[in-house]
């Protein structure tokens, strides 16, 4: 029995056989003996054949669904796959330099990129993205079949613990909760999208568990303890028994606490607090209803994409999904955020994660979180953006739809988006009468937007604070980098001050502000947010009942005093200590303490 410690990102405990999935490009570069040259060339050739079959399949599906224009992208990729400069070049490198296929492929791609980098034309340099996708697919197909991304999920026929080096949100969105018992991931953090998704699906998950993909072989019995942040390989029967007892106890608590929590929530002194749900997938609606949410505060539309590129998702299919959401939630409002994807997710063919290919040589393309993504990407691909806006406007006739724009950093972007909305809906009539204009709001997740809420409020109908990104960009912390993840501090005085300012500026302009980040799922942070003046929250359905209970036990006066004190304290440790002293009834934990705190019972 071995135990690997990681970060507890989604509570609960689960065990089962491991399904191993590798997404990242393994840094496998080794020399081969001359006798193995033929074998290595055969491996490369087999990867090329699998890739060609995949691309032909995608091409056929896409031309049927989305038309010839988009399908031609895959024709181009097929040509790239067959081009003399790529696979045959790699084959020559294997033969002459006696290196493994992965290394040879990397070198061929690097040679190609080097020429491109010389060109110096940013616009055309982006073109190597298509080549990177093809290379990513080839690399993925060089992996043994048993651990290949898409195939692992597709081939899963019995419930398993998914063990992976990395789980891209597009893959996470494909997880079938009936077949996945829990997640053990080498990378990621509490606020990573995959962790959020795991929580919303109620899947126990541990992230940052270093080396699990190396220690665990497919089929090995694995236990994921999402309360303590532990992955146990080959657990003893006694350990399983204890985990089972813990799980049964938790289950009874959930049921006991459930039904009484419906209806509007209010503080002990009668201030109404609204709780809405963050939703990743339409099939979560039942959970939203059960949690007593007063609407959907954030629907992440990009999760509809699954493994598809945004261009493959036409107006009609989008409309059907949005309409279904709206009708099932009626009369409660539904806030739908437009696609928050980056370039690789937008153009990618995602059957093999394109990030595999995009990562190293394409570093100069700046595909990171500060690159071309979200509203920036939408405004650059107006046809795709207008398709989504038209689908949203059509769904808006069936209920209360609000449009939320992600990653806005300036008034100009908001204006441009409004123009796109006007263009998209031009000529749309609503059975003879004027359609009611849909409210258009923006996410406050870039510091520049947070600091100019008064200016944005003139043209935005509402605001939604996305704490994950706001914290990350304000504190300059890459939350996916485990080495600095501890600096991701929701109670940093800068964050509290920034949120206070947003609430004040929006309030002066009469604009509502909702807070939709994971921050509010932490009891201490929730109290401070209430005290800073946040009265609307959107969170994962599972977190709502507990938040309601907490709200009912405090008065507005005491949380205001606590918040006023907190913004003047120098560190988040001081703030946590202050909260613990003022609200002794609640147990405040800091997220990073999850893994160290001994915990006998489930939460």
């Amino acid at each position, binding site marked *: 029995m071995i135990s690997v410690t990681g970060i507890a990102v989604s509570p609960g405990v689960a065990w089962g056989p491991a399904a191993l999935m590798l997404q990242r490009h393994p840094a496998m570069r080794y020399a081969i003996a001359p006798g193995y040259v033929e074998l290595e060339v055969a491996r490369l050739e087999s990867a090329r054949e699998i890739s060609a079959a995949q691309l032909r399949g995608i091409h056929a599906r896409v031309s049927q669904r989305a038309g010839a224009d988009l399908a*031609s*992208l895959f*024709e*181009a*990729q097929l*040509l*790239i796959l067959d*081009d*003399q*400069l*790529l696979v045959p070049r790699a084959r020559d490198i294997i033969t002459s330099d006696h290196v493994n296929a992965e290394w040879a492929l990397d070198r061929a791609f690097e040679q*190609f990129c080097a*020429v*491109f980098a010389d*060109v110096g*034309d940013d*616009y*055309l*340099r982006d*073109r*190597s993205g*298509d*080549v990177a996708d093809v290379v990513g697919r080839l690399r993925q197909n060089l992996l043994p079949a048993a651990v290949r991304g898409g195939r692992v999920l597709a081939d899963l026929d019995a419930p398993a613990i998914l063990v992976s080096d990395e789980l891209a949100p597009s893959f996470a969105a494909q997880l079938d909760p009936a077949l996945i018992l829990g997640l053990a991931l080498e990378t990621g953090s509490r606020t990573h999208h995959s962790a959020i998704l795991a929580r919303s699906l109620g899947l126990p998950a541990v992230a940052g568990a270093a080396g699990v993909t190396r220690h665990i072989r497919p089929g090995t019995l694995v236990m994921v303890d999402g309360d303590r942040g532990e992955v146990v390989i080959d657990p003893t029967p006694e350990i399983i028994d204890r985990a089972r007892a813990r799980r049964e106890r938790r289950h009874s608590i959930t049921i006991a606490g459930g039904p009484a929590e419906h209806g509007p929530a209010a503080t002990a002194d009668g201030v109404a607090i609204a709780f809405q749900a963050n939703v990743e997938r339409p099939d979560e609606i039942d959970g939203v209803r059960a949690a007593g949410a007063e609407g959907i505060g954030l629907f992440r539309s990009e999760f509809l994409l699954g493994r598809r590129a945004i261009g493959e998702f036409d107006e009609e299919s989008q409309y059907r999904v949005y309409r279904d959401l709206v009708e099932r939630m009626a009369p409660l409002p539904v806030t739908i955020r437009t696609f928050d994807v980056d370039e690789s997710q937008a153009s990618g063919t995602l059957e093999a994660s394109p990030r595999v290919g995009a990562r190293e040589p394409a570093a100069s393309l700046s595909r990171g979180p500060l690159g071309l993504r979200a509203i920036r990407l939408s405004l650059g691909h107006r046809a795709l953006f207008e398709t989504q806006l038209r689908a949203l406007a059509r769904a808006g006739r069936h209920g209360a739809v609000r449009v939320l724009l992600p990653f806005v950093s300036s008034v100009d972007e908001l204006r441009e988006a409004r123009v796109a909305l006007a263009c998209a809906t031009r000529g749309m009539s609503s059975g003879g009468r004027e359609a009611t204009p849909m409210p258009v709001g923006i996410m406050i997740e870039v510091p520049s937007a947070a600091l100019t809420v008064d200016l944005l409020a003139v043209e935005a109908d509402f605001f939604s604070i996305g704490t994950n990104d706001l914290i990350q960009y304000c504190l300059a912390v890459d939350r996916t980098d485990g080495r600095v993840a501890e600096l991701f501090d929701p109670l940093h005085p800068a964050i509290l001050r920034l949120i206070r300012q947003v609430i004040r500026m929006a309030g002066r302009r009469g604009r509502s502000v909702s807070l939709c980040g994971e921050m509010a799922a932490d009891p201490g942070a929730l109290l401070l947010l209430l005290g800073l003046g946040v009265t609307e929250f959107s969170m994962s359905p599972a977190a709502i009942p507990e938040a309601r209970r907490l709200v009912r036990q405090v008065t507005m006066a005491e949380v205001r005093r606590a918040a006023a004190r907190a913004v003047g304290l120098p560190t988040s440790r001081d703030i946590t200590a202050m909260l613990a002293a003022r609200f002794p009834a609640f147990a405040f934990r800091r997220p990073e303490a999850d893994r160290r705190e001994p915990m006998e019972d489930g939460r």
Partner: protein
Amino acid sequence: MLTRTVTVRNALGMHARAAARFVHAAGVYQSHVSVTRADRGDRVVDGKSILGLLLLAAARGAVIRITADGADEAEAIVALCRLVDTGFGEEP
């Protein structure tokens, strides 16, 4: 052997899809097709290789020189020049 010079007119330049169309069009003919930038550089690429064409980095306004050599070189050069000249059938 025939050579002709033509300007890239479509907004996106010779990107992957446009290059793919060029390769498909060139593949119809037996003639050897090579392409180079007339306005800069000396790289001569195979007109039937998509990666080669991408390496020309021919954005809108770039002037490219197409050479066809073979039995059907006349037909090939006319067809390929027309393809580039009409912006690869894309929006201008």
